[in-house]
């Protein structure tokens, strides 16, 4: 049984996530779409906090809200005039998109709800400590992640070099 406060928090966060993600794909001003994306990412971070993964929520806010959305805003301001509207959707592409997304919603939603009985209430868990996270990230044993960690660092280096090379003025 959940407390009333946690249910209210849950409803607010989930409503914000759904409403802002719908707005982010339907608004015609591109800068507003980026702002709504920011709010959606905040709602996802709030979900991570609600599920006791504080570190993940902090990473979500730092990387997504602090890094990616800023990149989006800069690139939007570089490539379009503020106040530009995107052109009106043709009814063909809108119908196509609606069919694809509603079909997907139907199929996946039916698959989820038909197995709804398998989902039990949230089990007890202590939030993972930072020391656990550190040893899991830096260890080489089973269930530890040193190799992907190093691979990601090489990937980020390649990404830096690639970004500089691609976006450089010739």
């Amino acid at each position, binding site marked *: 049984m959940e407390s009333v406060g946690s249910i209210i928090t849950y409803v607010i966060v989930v409503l914000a996530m759904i409403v802002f993600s719908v707005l982010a794909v339907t608004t015609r001003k591109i800068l507003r*779409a980026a702002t709504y994306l920011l709010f959606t990412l905040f709602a996802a971070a709030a979900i991570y906090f609600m599920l006791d993964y504080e570190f993940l929520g902090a990473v979500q806010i730092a990387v997504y809200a602090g890094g990616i959305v800023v990149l989006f805003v800069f*690139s939007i301001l570089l490539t379009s005039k503020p106040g530009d509207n995107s052109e009106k959707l043709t009814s063909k592409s809108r119908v196509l998109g609606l069919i694809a997304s509603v079909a997907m919603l139907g199929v996946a939603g039916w698959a989820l709800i038909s197995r709804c009985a398998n*989902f039990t209430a949230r089990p007890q868990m202590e939030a993972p400590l930072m020391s656990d996270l550190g040893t899991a990230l830096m260890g080489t044993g089973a269930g530890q992640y040193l190799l992907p960690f190093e691979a990601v660092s090489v990937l980020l280096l390649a990404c830096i070099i690639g970004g500089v090379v691609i976006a450089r003025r010739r």
Partner: protein
Amino acid sequence: MEITAIYYLIPSLIMFCCGVYGFITRKNMIAMLISLELMLNAVDVNFVVFNRFLFPGQMEGMFFTLFAIAIAAAETALAIAIIINIFRSTKNVDVSGLNEMKF
């Protein structure tokens, strides 16, 4: 009222479908990238929810999400570099107007 896993999975499914809709209907490449971010983020939420509800005490889903966030950041940075480069040469970021290399 018990908040089970389904109460988190359905909103993230809706978020994913919004991403699909935006990816199909949008013409601006940055808007398509925003829809892509929505889809990626919905998948991340799913990983975390399954980890928390089915395997509490383990951290596989959490680390998968952590690495997915890092890779999404790298991918977005590269995609935006490509978009800016395209904009510089064609003054246009709409996919419908980009057919120079096609034929």
